[in-house]
C-alpha cells in the first residue's frame, strides 16, 4: 500500500459490497515452521509466543499435516455477539477488538467455531489483517499464506459451530485443520501409493 494503511471503519462499511480482505491458506505448502506465529506475535506485541499470536499453526504430526488457523472472516460473525460491543468490523471486513470495551469475559472465544479468536491474559487475540498488510504473509516464503484484498464469497462456518461446540480453541482448530486437510491426504496417498 503506497499511501499508507487504510484506517479501520465501523461495522457494515466494507469498501466494496460483498467482498472482504482475506488471508488464504494453501495447506499443501505449509511446512509447520511457525514463522507466521513468530512474526505476528513479535511485530504486534513485541514478544514471541504462540499465546499472543493471532495465527496458530496446528501440527498434526501423525498425519504430517501443518495447518495455520486464523480468522476466516465468516459470514455469520459468531464472535460479534459480544455483549459489550467490543467486537467490531473494519473496512476490510476484519474483526477488530476495542480493548476499552472488552471485559475479558471470553464469550467470543467460546462462540468462534474454529478457535480463531482466543484469550490470553484476558485479552482476545484475533487476526485483524494488519490493516491490509499482514506480517505473517510477508514471512511465509513457501507461499502457504496469501493475502487477497478483495475476496468474494464469504466463508460459512455454520456446521462447525455445531460440531465444535464446547471444545477448547485448540481442539476446535485441530478438528478444523484435519477436516480441511482431508483432500490433501487423499492426494498424497493417490499419488504415492498407486
Amino acid at each position, binding site marked *: 500500500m503506497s499511501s499508507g494503511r487504510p484506517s479501520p471503519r465501523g461495522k457494515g462499511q466494507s469498501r466494496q459490497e460483498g467482498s472482504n480482505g482475506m488471508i488464504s491458506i494453501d495447506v499443501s*505448502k505449509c*511446512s*509447520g*515452521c*511457525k514463522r507466521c506465529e513468530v512474526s505476528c506475535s*513479535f511485530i504486534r506485541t513485541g514478544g*514471541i*509466543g504462540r499465546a499472543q499470536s493471532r495465527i496458530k499453526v496446528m501440527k498434526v504430526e501423525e498425519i*504430517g499435516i501443518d495447518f495455520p488457523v486464523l480468522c476466516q472472516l465468516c459470514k455469520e460473525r459468531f464472535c460479534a455477539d459480544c455483549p459489550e460491543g467490543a467486537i467490531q468490523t473494519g473496512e476490510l471486513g476484519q474483526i477488530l477488538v476495542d480493548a476499552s470495551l472488552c471485559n475479558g469475559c471470553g464469550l467470543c472465544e467460546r462462540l468462534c467455531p474454529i478457535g480463531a479468536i482466543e484469550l490470553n491474559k484476558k485479552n482476545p487475540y484475533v487476526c485483524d489483517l494488519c490493516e491490509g498488510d499482514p506480517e505473517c504473509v510477508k514471512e511465509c516464503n513457501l507461499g502457504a499464506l496469501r493475502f487477497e484484498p478483495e475476496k468474494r464469497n464469504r466463508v460459512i462456518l455454520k456446521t462447525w459451530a455445531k460440531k465444535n461446540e464446547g471444545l*477448547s480453541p485448540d481442539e476446535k482448530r485441530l478438528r478444523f485443520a484435519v477436516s480441511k486437510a482431508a483432500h490433501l491426504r487423499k492426494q498424497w496417498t493417490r499419488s504415492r501409493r498407486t
Partner: protein
Amino acid sequence: MVYGYAGRILRVNLTDGTVKTENLDLELARETIGGRGMNSRRLYLELKKDIDPLSPENLLIFGVGPLTGSPLTASAYFTVSAKSPLTGILGDSAAGGHLGPELKQAGYDQVIITGRSAKPSYIFITGEKVEIRDATDLWGKDIWKTSAAIRKKLRDPSCQIAAIGPAGEHLVKYATIACNNSRMCGRTGMGCVMGSKNLKAIVVKGTGAVILADNRRFLSLCKEIDRKIVSHPEYQKRMNLGTTMLMTDLNRIGILPTRHFQRGIFEQVGNVSGETLARQFKVKNKSCFNCNVHCSRYYVTEDTEGEGPEFETLCSYSSRLGVDNLHFTLRVNTYLNRMGMDSVSSGEAIGWAIECIEKGLLTPKDFDGLDLRWGNTDTIEKLLTMIAKRKGIGDAFAEGTRSLAERFGKGTEKYAFHVKGLDMICGDPRGLKAYGLTYAIASRGADHLRAEPFFELTQRYDEAEKRFGTREAANRLSEEGKAALVEYSERLALLIDCLTVCKNIGLCMDVLDFETASELLVAGTGLHFTPDGIHQLLKNQIDIDRKMNLEFGMNPSLDTLPARFTGEPLTEGASQGSVIDIDKLVKEYYRIKGWDEKGVPKNQK
C-alpha cells in the same frame, strides 16, 4: 528484568517427587551462554563422575539458550546432556523441532532431572505449575502413540512432548529421545538414561513469551541473516533435499560409506539418493521452529509414512548395509523413530556383524541363525525388532558395537567402527581429513557435529588462506591446516549449540560468525558479550569438557580412528589411495589447543 533467557531453571527429583524452581544464575549464563555449554558446565559442577550412568544419581539435563525461540532463523534446538551409558563419558544430543521454544515460552532455560521414579512417569511443565504424573498406561507404547495419547488425555493437541519409546524403556544403550515424533536427540543414548529414570516423557505447554532487550536491533540482524540464507548458492538444493543431498555428493567424491566402509562408492546410489527419494516419495517440506530453509521432508510410501529421513539414517540403512531399496529404508526410518533408537549406532552394529560373517570371523550361528548378508532387508528388519526389545541376540546388539565386538573377540574388534564407544557417522574420513580429526577428538566420541568442518568441502581457497593461513584447509584431501580448521569450527559449533541454533545453517551454510553472534547476544539479552569474550568462554568450556572426560576415566590415547581409516587406502574414485594420518593431526590439534602431548589442558580453570 531478564531478556533473552527465560530466567528460571527447574529441578525435578524423581525419587522423592520434589520439584524446585530457581532463578537462573546470570553469572553462569554469561560464562556458558546456554544450551550445550550450560548443560556441560552443570554436569561438571554437580555430577559425581564415577557413578553408573544408569543409576538414579545421573543427571538428565534439558537446556535451551538465550536466543531459543527468538526471531533468529532456526532458533529451534534444545540439548539433552548426561553421563552417557553408551560411552561412559560426556553424553549429549540436540534436536530441533518445536520443543525448545515451547520450554522457553513456559519460562525455563534448563530442566535438571535426577533420581528414579518408582513407577513410569511423565513430567508436565507449564508456566504456572510442574507435576510428575503417572505414565503406567503409556509404558510400552511407541513414541508416536505416546504423544497422541498424551495430547488426547490432556485435551491439548499443541503441547510439545519429548518422549522415549520401547528402546529407551528396555535400556538400549543408544536409545533416543524424540520431540515432534521424528526430531531426534539421537546420539549417546540419552533415551536410555531417561528410561533408567522410569521417565516416559516430558510434556511442555508454554503460554508466555520470549522477550528481547533490543527488538529493533535484533530484528535487523535476523533480516540480514535471512538474506544471506536465501541468497546462498545451496539454498534451493537444501530446501528440496535437506541433508539427503549428501548421498549423491559423497558418492561423487568417493567417500559414501558402502558395505560398512569397504568402499566409498555405491554403484546403486541412484536408487537411494536424496533426489530419488524426493521424486518418488516426498509430499511436502517440513520445518523446525522459525526456519526459512524448511529442509525436512514428509514422505508417503505404499506401506509407511513419516518425517525425514536425514542423511545419516538414509545412508546407514542403504549403502552402508548394501541396500538399494528405498521402501526398506523409509520403513526402517519410521520404525526407529517410533521405537526411539539411533540409526547410526544400530546401523554400525549390524554392519559390523555382516562384515564379520563375510570375513569368516563369525557365522550366522553366532547371531541366533540370522542370515545376515549385505542387502538382506528382511533379516535386518527382524534384527532391529530384537534389538529394540532386547530379545535373543538383540540383547547383545543393544549394548553398542564396542561392547558387542569385545564380547565376541577373535579380532572382530578391529571392524567395530567407533571412537570411545560412539559409533562412527556416515562419512569416510579417508577423504575428509578435518572430519576424521573431529571424530577422533570430539568430546562425545566419533561424531561430526562437534565441529562440522564443512568448510573443507567448499573449495573456498582464498577464504581458507585468510582464516587458517593455508589454502589447503579448503582441500578435503589435504591434512594441512585441518587442525586449525577443526579448532575454529569446534568453537563455532559449541557457540551454535549454546545459542541452540541449527548447524546446517550456522556452520554448513556459514551464515553465522562470532561477531554476528555476539551482536545477537547483546541485542537479545542486554548483557555484555564481546567476540573476544565469547572466544575465551568457548575455549574454557571445551577445556572443561576435556577435563570432565578425563575425570570420567577417558583414556586420551583413544583420540584416534579405527585401523581401516589409517591403514587401508580407498580403492577407487575421487579419493582413491587416500588414508588419514590421524596421529599427526591429533598432535597438531593438541598444540593449537595449548594441551600437553597427552591431550591434557594445561591451564585448567
